[in-house]
């Protein structure tokens, strides 16, 4: 049996988080009725001209600097010519000859093995509109709201050898970009998209095999499955004595199979040439330095600061910083309630549990730090007990409710009234003579049962400390 090696390179498209489009002042907001975020520029009206959004350059530069790229201080835009109705000018303004970033790389760590994945280039370009087919009228319609939304394309070298390496690289890349605030990088919503270039060759072969490019991968899981599937498909072809065709394939994650879209033979000639409507972008040393100094705290720095400044365990710091959103919530909540360990606990235990249970991404968390801080303060003040707090937190997590209001409305205040507690406990004792007997015979476990019965009778709202104390006293 021959041994095969998989060689993978990625082209990652990231939608940048600018408020306005790359070449006009239209909003980039997601959603909106079709063609409401449009103007003559992003709909390709005759006579309209592009004007570059500087923020796009700064984000691209920031990503380049954070991934150890060299910045092209005199970079240019080029036109990529192709006809498609979602492309209003029938050319896309992109960068071919002088991309803004070149020759970078990031280090990944897969099961303790460190490896650098080199980045060939990062270039800026505009997104296309969206085509929709109207079955009723049997016609196609175009929505140009997305047309002109800024993208960067991060092109890696073919340095990855497994889906684990690919996922680790993508996760790391995503985290860097999220920390920079350059994009929210949501695969499902398409603000991060990865195309996989893959070839296989026999271990020890001197040359790479023929590669294919896989598109339509909208989750990490789909990427991993597509890599497995494509590797298997190519190996089977080779084993059968057939050859792999250089082509673009579309992955169908439901069927777990890819389909050929177009081969190299019918690849288009994009007739790239320098965009005459835009002047070259001159990036001065000062501008580069400014972007560098304004670079937000990245994960490693944050992780270190959490340990030293907030005194939380390394393990906690690691988990919390694994998502920019989580780290943001952590810091904002701590700023309000000044209880880093308590905040960390809520994130580490309940938040992670609910994320898993609801099968969402940490980036999709939507509750406000204010509400978590209030919850912590309610527990701290003894207004609610721990059990109730968990129930309230679930409401915060799913509906972002105001815990103070919620507790008041639902009457969840902790019962600290000694008279009421004493009366209930006395009744529980009289109803459970066997447990009382057991306790007196030295079975400590029995008290747990009695506490439980008391809490149940008080609908979970009793102050557990007081229940324990009173029980011991009355027994």
């Amino acid at each position, binding site marked *: 049996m021959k041994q095969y090696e998989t060689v993978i390179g990625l082209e990652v498209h990231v939608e940048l988080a600018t408020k306005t489009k790359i070449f006009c002042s239209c909003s980039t907001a997601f959603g909106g009725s079709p063609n409401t975020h449009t103007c003559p520029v992003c709909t390709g009206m005759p*006579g309209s001209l592009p004007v570059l959004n500087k923020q796009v350059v700064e984000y691209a530069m920031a990503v380049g600097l954070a991934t150890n790229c060299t910045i092209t201080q005199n970079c240019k835009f080029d036109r990529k010519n192709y006809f498609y*109705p979602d492309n209003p000018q029938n*050319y896309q303004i992109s960068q071919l000859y002088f991309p803004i970033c070149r020759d970078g790389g990031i280090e990944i760590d897969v099961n303790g093995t460190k490896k650098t994945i080199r980045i060939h280039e990062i270039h800026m370009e505009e997104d296309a509109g969206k085509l929709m087919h109207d079955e009723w009228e049997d016609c196609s319609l*175009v929505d140009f709201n997305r047309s002109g939304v800024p993208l960067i394309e991060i092109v890696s070298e073919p340095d990855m050898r497994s889906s684990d390496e690919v996922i680790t690289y993508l996760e790391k890349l995503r985290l860097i970009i999220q920390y920079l605030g350059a994009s929210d990088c949501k695969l499902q919503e398409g603000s991060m998209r990865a195309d996989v270039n893959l070839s296989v060759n026999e271990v020890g072969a001197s040359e790479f095999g023929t590669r294919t490019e896989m598109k339509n991968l909208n989750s990490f899981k789909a990427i991993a499955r597509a890599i497995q599937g494509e590797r298997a498909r190519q190996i089977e072809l080779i084993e059968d004595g057939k050859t792999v065709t250089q082509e673009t394939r579309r992955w169908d994650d439901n069927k777990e199979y890819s389909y050929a879209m177009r081969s190299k033979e019918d690849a288009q000639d994009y007739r790239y040439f320098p965009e005459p409507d835009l002047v070259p972008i001159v990036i001065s040393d000062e501008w580069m330095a400014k972007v560098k100094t304004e670079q937000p705290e990245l994960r490693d720095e944050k992780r270190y600061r959490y340990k030293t400044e907030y005194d939380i365990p390394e393990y906690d710091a690691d988990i919390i910083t694994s998502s920019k959103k989580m780290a943001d919530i952590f810091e904002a909540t701590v700023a309000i309630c000044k209880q880093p360990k308590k905040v960390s606990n809520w994130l580490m235990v309940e938040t992670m549990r609910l994320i898993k249970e609801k099968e969402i991404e940490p980036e999709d968390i939507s509750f406000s730090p204010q509400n978590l801080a209030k919850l912590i303060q309610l527990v701290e003040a003894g207004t609610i007990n721990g059990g109730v707090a968990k129930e309230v937190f679930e409401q915060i997590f799913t509906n972002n409710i105001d815990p103070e209001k919620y507790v008041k409305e639902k009457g969840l205040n902790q019962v600290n009234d000694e008279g009421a507690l004493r009366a209930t406990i006395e009744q529980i004792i009289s109803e459970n003579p066997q447990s009382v007997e057991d306790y007196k015979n030295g079975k400590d476990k029995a008290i747990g049962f009695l506490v439980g019965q008391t809490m149940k009778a008080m609908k979970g709202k009793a102050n557990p400390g007081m229940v324990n104390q009173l029980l011991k006293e009355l027994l």
Partner: protein
Amino acid sequence: MTVNLMSLTAVELGKKIKAKEVTVVEATKAALAQIKANDKELNCFVTVNEEAALIRAEEVQKRIDDGTLTGPLAGVPVAIKDNMCTKGILTTCSSKILGNFKPIYTAEAVINLENAGAVIIGKTNMDEFAMGSTTETSIFGATKNPWNTAHVPGGSSGGSAAAVAAEECSCALGSDTGGSIRQPSSFCGVTGMKPTYGTISRYGLIAYGSSLDQIGPIAKDVTDCATILEIIASYDTKDSTSVKREEYDFTSALVDDVKGLKIGIPRDYLTKGLDPEVKTSILNAAKALEAKGAIVEEFDLSLVQYAIPAYYIIASAEASSNLARFDGVKFGFRAKDFDGLHSMYKKTRSQGFGAEVKRRIMLGSFVLSSGYYDAYYIKALKTKALIKKAFDKAFEKYDVILGPTAPTTAPKLGESLSDPIKMYLGDIYTISVNLAGLPGISVPCGNDSKGLPIGLQLIGDCFQEKNIIKAAYAFEQTKKYDRCNIAKSRD
């Protein structure tokens, strides 16, 4: 005595309106009457904006009366080449593919004119998408030269130049990619100017060759040109190639003083191919300037023969991409009876574009395709840079370069279409000015034995419009404006 309002220059008419000797409505009506009388024959206009122009004239009059409009062109009827977007007014580029296109916005240069109180009376005919030198490639038929209707008016801004010559408007805007303002101005005996690239916003000018296109005035005299230029030139943040100039004053150069002005005549411009009558006329103009104290000498510019091939590669390459958006999807003409997307594209573009446009799209697509890009496009860009260098060298020595605008006077209708190469060669003196981004002006300097006008071209260094305005103005003082007699033109 009643003055023929349309025989006045734009500035003269503006003065009369300001002095309340003439109302804006009267001026507008005078232009419309001229159009009615002559345009059926001359075909200068694609769209006459009659109703809207009269409404606008009343508004402008009010704003002149209440003192909000005080500029020199307030109330003056102006024509706009049909490749500049005018909101709600048909803007066709004289092409079938934009035959029904009404823009949703107005070009920046036109807005500047409107803000100065000009009344847009219509949109003028042109070579389709500004590709051509005769205004014969228009889907709406050729425009005729008012001096002799058997001849072309030149192009591509032939409609604008002929409309000014035929006094169907006081002045007009044209656009110049390889000579499209200067050459028709020369053929029609009017004055036309292309300023330094970046001086006038291209926002709203339907692009042909983006790196070469520049809007400019076409008028009866140098004063009008400088006045219009001062109004339409502006730094526009909507056009990335717009230049923030130190000053936008051009009219202060309208002085009859060329003492010590250094003028160079490229020997390369006076060689074979130049009509002897044109040559004589140009050299006489140079003598007239010399007599006024200018220092005139001949010199070798070099590289002149490379300008045309470089131009046709660069302009066609850009055009092939610029014209891609005309596909039947979003606006303009869409072919009937198509079967699927590609068939729609193919039929729409096959039926929507004329032969010259298709030729340049094919040429441009070819020079940009992989394997040919370096050999053609990159080489053309290098040539462009060398041509600019040759001019830089010349301007170390001279303030103004003088020569013919075109090698001949206006050819007969139909003579050029059959031989595109010959037509391309007619642009030899104007094209390098676009490649180098320089300002150039064409002023009438006489007529040939057939009575057709000859144009003198004056070229300045980048941002030195004042030098050529000064030289053109001084030359103009040596001869009276020669009005064309339309009645005589029908032979």
